[in-house]
């Protein structure tokens, strides 16, 4: 019986929404989404059901309360000669309007408890993904399964020109990333959430999941998606200046497609691991580093290595880039807190890191130190720091 009521109720609501929306084209506006999404998981549907039920409870109460209010405002106006009554209390009324809401609340609490309990049941997941929030990007690490570990960052891919209104905004403006999270459909996937710096919150409305990613904590959430597709969300906890620019994109695919994707990712990761452990010459590293420098560092430190002082210091001739190499590695891996110099240790792979450091010491500006650092050494430094 309950589902049928829900259905009629939902139809009613769509009716109301539609009538409201019908007015919009007249104003030259496209109809925007106005209600919560039903989403693509059982939990998200249940959540939507709770949301609609409580809305209708509120509407019913509102009709009565506002009804009596409006009636009184019309009927008992002084200007129409209304004479005030003298009653000023009624224990019976007070009891009635304390008890009725109380009963309604209990009726509401029961289904809410059921749904909540279900969202907390993270057992028997087939796949575990560790999600780490960084200022201001998400990192996804696939934990289950054997073989090479797959881990990557997911960055906003909307071009800055669109944000600065210098280019036309694309369809998925601010809700697009370079590399989405990929998970299989019809599979229980468990997310473990944490953060590397401040608190973030991972939210995909279509899954009805919003869970804080907190440094030093590991939170859990789970999803079992019913329909393949691309689902978008955003960081939901203020996390600094780029908080509005760390979207989430999840690509849900068939199991076979997922397996193929994972295998490919594992192969690529294995290739990097293999490259990391192999022998490198200084020339090879400089060549590798040149590319990395031009992609990641050039904007601040400039092609000449002279930087833009005082905002961005010169690396050519700098005591760090020409002094003991440990200091240099440390700055690049961990950044300098409170300055524009970010920690690149998590953003670049060991080959890129070794390359860019060797390049900066031997081929940038006037620097000719003559030493080098290998990807394997970088890896060691990173493991030692953990």
């Amino acid at each position, binding site marked *: 019986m309950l589902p049928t009521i829900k259905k009629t109720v939902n139809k009613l609501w769509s009716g109301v929404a539609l009538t409201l929306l019908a007015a919009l084209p007249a104003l030259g506006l*496209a109809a*925007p*989404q106005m209600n*919560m999404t039903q989403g693509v998981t059982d*939990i998200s549907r*249940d*959540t939507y059901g*709770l*949301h609609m039920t*409580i*809305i209708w*409870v509120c509407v019913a*109460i*509102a009709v009565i*309360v*506002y009804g009596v*209010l409006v009636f*009184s*405002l019309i009927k*008992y106006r*002084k*200007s129409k000669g*209304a004479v*005030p*009554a003298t*009653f*000023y209390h*009624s224990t019976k*009324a007070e009891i009635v309007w*304390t008890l009725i*809401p*109380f009963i309604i609340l209990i009726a509401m*609490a029961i289904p*809410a*408890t059921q749904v909540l309990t279900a969202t*907390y049941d993270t057992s028997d997941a087939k796949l575990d993904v560790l999600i780490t929030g960084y200022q201001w990007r998400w990192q996804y690490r696939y934990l289950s399964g054997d073989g090479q570990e797959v881990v990557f960052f997911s960055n906003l891919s909307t071009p800055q020109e669109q944000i600065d209104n210098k280019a036309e905004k694309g369809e998925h*403006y*601010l809700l697009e990333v370079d590399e989405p999270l990929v998970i299989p459909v019809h599979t229980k996937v468990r997310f473990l*959430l944490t953060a590397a*710096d401040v608190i973030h*919150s991972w*939210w995909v409305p279509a899954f*009805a999941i*919003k*869970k*804080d990613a907190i*440094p*030093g*904590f590991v*939170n859990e959430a789970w999803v079992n998606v019913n329909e393949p597709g691309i689902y978008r*969300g*955003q*960081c*939901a*906890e*203020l*996390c*600094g*200046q780029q*908080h509005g620019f760390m979207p989430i994109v999840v690509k849900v695919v068939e199991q076979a497609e997922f397996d193929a994707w994972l295998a490919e990712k594992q192969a690529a990761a294995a290739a990097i691991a293999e490259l990391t452990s192999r022998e490198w010459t200084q020339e090879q590293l400089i060549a590798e580093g040149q590319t990395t420098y031009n992609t990641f560092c050039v904007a601040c430190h400039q092609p000449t290595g002279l930087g833009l002082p005082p905002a961005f210091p010169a690396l050519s001739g700098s005591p760090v880039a020409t002094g003991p190499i440990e200091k240099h590695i440390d700055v690049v891996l961990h950044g300098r807190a409170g300055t524009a110099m970010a920690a690149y240790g998590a953003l670049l792979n060991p080959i890129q890191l070794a390359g860019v450091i060797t390049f900066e010491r031997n081929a940038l500006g006037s620097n000719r130190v003559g030493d080098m650092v290998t990807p394997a050494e970088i890896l060691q430094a990173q493991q030692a720091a953990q």
Partner: protein
Amino acid sequence: MATGHGHDDHHHGPAKGITRWLYTTNHKDIGTMYLVFSLAMFLLGGTFALVIRAELFQPGLQFVTPNFFNQMTTMHGLVMVFGAVMPAFVGLANWMIPMMIGAPDMALPRMNNWSFWILPFAFLMLSSTLFMDSGAPNFGWTFYAPLSTTYAPSSVTFFIFAVHMMGVSSIMGSINIIATIQNLRAPGMTYMKMPLFVWTWLITAYLLLAVMPVLAGVVTMMLFDIHFGTSFFSAAGGGDPVLFQHVFWFFGHPEVYIMILPAFGVVSEIVSTFSRKRLFGYDSMVYATSSIAFLSFIVWAHHMFTTGMPLAGELFFMYATMLIAVPTGVKVFNWIATMFKGSISFETPMLFAIAFVVLFTMGGFTGLMLAISPADFQYQDTYFVVAHFHYVLVPGAVFSIMAATYYWLPKWTGNMYDENLGRLHFWLSFIGINVLFFPQHFLGLAGMPRRIPDYALQFADFNMLSSIGAFIFGFSQLLFVFIVIKAARGGKKATAEVWDGSHGLEWTVPSPAPYHTFSTPPVIK
């Protein structure tokens, strides 16, 4: 104590010039200063809000950087909560509580002076951060660690001291209000005869006394984390970022009732006056207020449903939060029962009070929705929450302050305000506020997070609408300033009763109220 507290200059008027305001211990002068200060902060905080709404008028970054945007949201919240709403209610308390209970002044007049004069300096210090190299605080008015500690701009220290000063001011103010109400009531003014505004303020003052030290504690812990190497909130040092949220919201949740309970009092006075009928269910109003105050201490973690609390915690806070709907409902039903079979007229204070009942109830409905923890996962930190708390704070707290101003302005100034302009102000505000905040419900449900300077294209239409509402509402407040100044300078003379349905001691003294009232206590039948 009550009678042993006379001054020598009882029958003199106020001192002349600036020293009147600097040295005054008169509750009416201090009330006026609180109210003027609050109005100034309301305009300042409103300006910050308009910067926010201007930036959000269209997608893309138009006017400000994301960092400055965050400074605006932070400063808007802090200034409105601590600078506009709270001082306004303290101002009303100063003016009205002694006159409502038949006391000659506040119980601790010199402390009263001090609690006011701390405030301008606190806000000067807070506002000065806008001009610092590091920029103003940018971590939201809820200042979650570690964003507000390890990752904060260096101006955070000024923010912490400003919060300490506001806290000291509030604590002294609340001690004063408690001392006044408990000791200086005229003979015969028993607790259950006190006007509801006095009752709600008494309870509010206790709430303030209980939670302002907690706020002071949490900012002090931040101060130590930032400057003295402790790790209360840093996981790396063995601390706990979630602890911050527990402590903050243990203050923060009662704080929202601190901002609404006095509003309940104001509205109860006004609804009864303009319905020309005694307030329905006075006793149950007192009990409901007390239960709300009690419940406000055990619901704090409903602000933290997404932090990953254990299931049992989640359930407890969900049930406790749902319970708040019961006493809140009782209040609304009582107001409506007061109007029912009354003889209602629609002067400006009544218009604002009716709008309060309607729109605060809207905020109550969305509050009930937010209590449902699984649904809250979808609402939390979206514009739905923004819409919810602005509905309870703006057409709630702020409308009640405006209602109170129109209601008592004739008593303060001796002149009637311009009724037509007052009604115009009401309708502009009413329309503005709904155009501003109603669409934000839709934005939140459709998935727009709060505190973002730029947004995806599907949110564009409602944001534009909301910004239009913001500018209508914002600029209508200049009309309010004009009306108040106009009434202060002259106008139709007010009688002592002012309103034909008025009741209570404050209406037995002449308008404007003399500098000293009730030097001899009135007799209450």
